[in-house]
């Protein structure tokens, strides 16, 4: 009995993470899934231990959540949308920087049913579109619409819970939904259970080209232990490459760490995400490098999407200086 209570106490008296030797906390921007696999791959394949780093992963609830927790010192590294980070930094001095790009194209997309009359983004005029309330996609929607000579008021926009989006479209309540391309596999599966198929209209194909999800780090950690941050970036670099070139193993790795994640589904998610990670941009600039020009383009979109003036932030301050040179070497 006594022992039981002692265990019970130990159970919740966890010590809050602190910068012990090379123990770091990594903050996801959402729940575990295929597109979050690199950090798990890094652990399973030993990329972190090769750099003498021990990683603990925390789940998150959106980019803002992730950035806030890294800024507050609750985590050292994380995934977050660099656009969200830039918008945050333009408004207050958030001590967080990006250290490695992850998605070099926007992950946002419209999903429609295959039998829908909507085949191009411009066909959406006057249609009902559902989006989730807190997705970063919402900020970029006006920009995408503008590229097709539309405004937000040309659509009937409905905000709903993420879980409700698919069912709303499948039951015919809305004509299209806004979701990330990373979830194509999941939405396809859901549609299949209702005997339907889907078509996806990625925003990146219509010209919304920008840095999106990135690896972020605490600026304080970068100042106090730049070497650790660089080693971490290097391990992540290797992990991302591994994950996207050996998707099946990556699926198994994440399943190993998070049993709830199905290895096959994770693999499908990784494959669906591939074009966001390795694409024409990485062909041109090289993988794992922030370029000042593309960063400037990103900021231009982000500033416009968030109603910020372009001079409210020096875009380059959102990225650790070493990350411009490339992290791998």
């Amino acid at each position, binding site marked *: 009995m006594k022992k039981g209570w002692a265990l019970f106490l130990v159970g919740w008296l*966890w010590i809050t993470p602190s910068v012990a030797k090379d123990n770091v906390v990594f903050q996801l921007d*959402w729940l575990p*899934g295929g597109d979050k696999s690199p950090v798990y791959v890094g652990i399973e394949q030993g990329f972190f231990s090769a750099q003498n780093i021990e990683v603990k992963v925390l789940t998150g609830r959106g980019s803002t959540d992730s950035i806030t927790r890294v800024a507050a010192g609750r985590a050292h590294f994380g995934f977050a949308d660099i656009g969200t980070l830039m918008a945050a930094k333009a408004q207050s001095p958030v001590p967080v920087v990006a250290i490695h790009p992850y998605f070099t194209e926007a992950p946002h997309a419209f999903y429609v049913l295959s039998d829908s009359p909507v085949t191009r983004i411009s066909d959406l005029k006057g249609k009902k579109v559902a989006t989730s309330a807190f997705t970063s996609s919402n900020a970029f929607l006006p920009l995408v619409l503008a590229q097709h000579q539309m405004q937000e008021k040309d659509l009937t926009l409905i905000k709903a819970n993420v*879980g409700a989006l698919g069912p709303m479209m*499948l039951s015919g309540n809305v004509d299209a939904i806004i979701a990330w391309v990373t979830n194509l596999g*999941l939405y396809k599966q859901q549609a299949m259970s209702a005997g339907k198929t889907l078509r996806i209209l990625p925003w990146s194909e219509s010209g919304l080209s920008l840095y999106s999800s990135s690896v972020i780090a605490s600026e304080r950690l970068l100042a106090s232990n730049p070497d650790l941050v660089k080693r971490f970036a290097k391990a992540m670099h290797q992990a991302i490459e591994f994950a996207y070139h050996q998707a099946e193993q990556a699926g198994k790795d994440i399943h190993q760490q998070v049993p709830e*994640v199905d290895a096959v*589904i994770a693999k499908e998610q990784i494959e669906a995400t591939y074009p966001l990670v390795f694409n024409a941009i990485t062909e041109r600039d090289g993988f794992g490098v922030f370029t000042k020009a593309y960063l400037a383009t990103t900021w231009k979109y982000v500033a416009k999407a968030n109603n910020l003036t372009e001079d409210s932030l020096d875009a380059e301050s959102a990225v650790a200086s070493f990350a411009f040179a490339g992290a791998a070497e």
Partner: protein
Amino acid sequence: MKTLLSRLWILLFWLALVAVWEISCRVWAVPEFILPMPSAIWQAFLDVEFNRWMAHLWATLRVALSGFFISLAISLPLAIVMLRSATIKKLLYPMLVVIQATPVVAVAPLIIVLVGTEDPSRILITCLITFFPMVVSTITGMSATPDELIELSRSLQAPRYRETWQIRIPYAMGHIFSGLRVAITLAVIGAVVAEFVAAEEGLGYFIQFSTSFFKIPQAFAGLIFLACVSLLLFKSVQWVQQLWFPWSLNNNE
């Protein structure tokens, strides 16, 4: 005999409900993402390994129960102090009402950032949600002590602490337990709310996770499991009352 029969009826009612659910889903071919069939939910339940269920259960339970007991340990002395001193009551009561009126869902993300992503912050969230009913029911119970008993105590010139321990608190047990019954279900809700905001494990996290993967039957399985746990905790509070404080059950003088 009579209770056995009525229990049988209740069981039959639930079985019939499940049957109607299953059949309607099949007849009208209700898509899984709208309402999964009981058989699909059962299958989803079996598909998750036993030790995973236990890990999630333990994560939720340790937060819910720690929050519940810490809340209890704080609210009882606080209620006593508030009953003794009108000034302290005037000072603290509005504060308690403010805490109660603030939606925990809204402050939970702030607590996670301030306190951290480990159990303590989740326990704090649970405490915030369970605290109020405990304090209020304890105060109400202790003030409901018959005047004659208080006069008896005063006529004996007994020390005040004995009035509290030997009369007021035992007398308040009926009220305290109705507060505890409310609080124990709130504790589970608190733990789940906290898991929705930050967690790597737990039944609330499991439900959210399942939804994010559109595994609706699995989410339902988690939900029903959680409801059963909640019910069991509620019943446990009742059993404790029946076993150790039987007088408080028919204390309607």
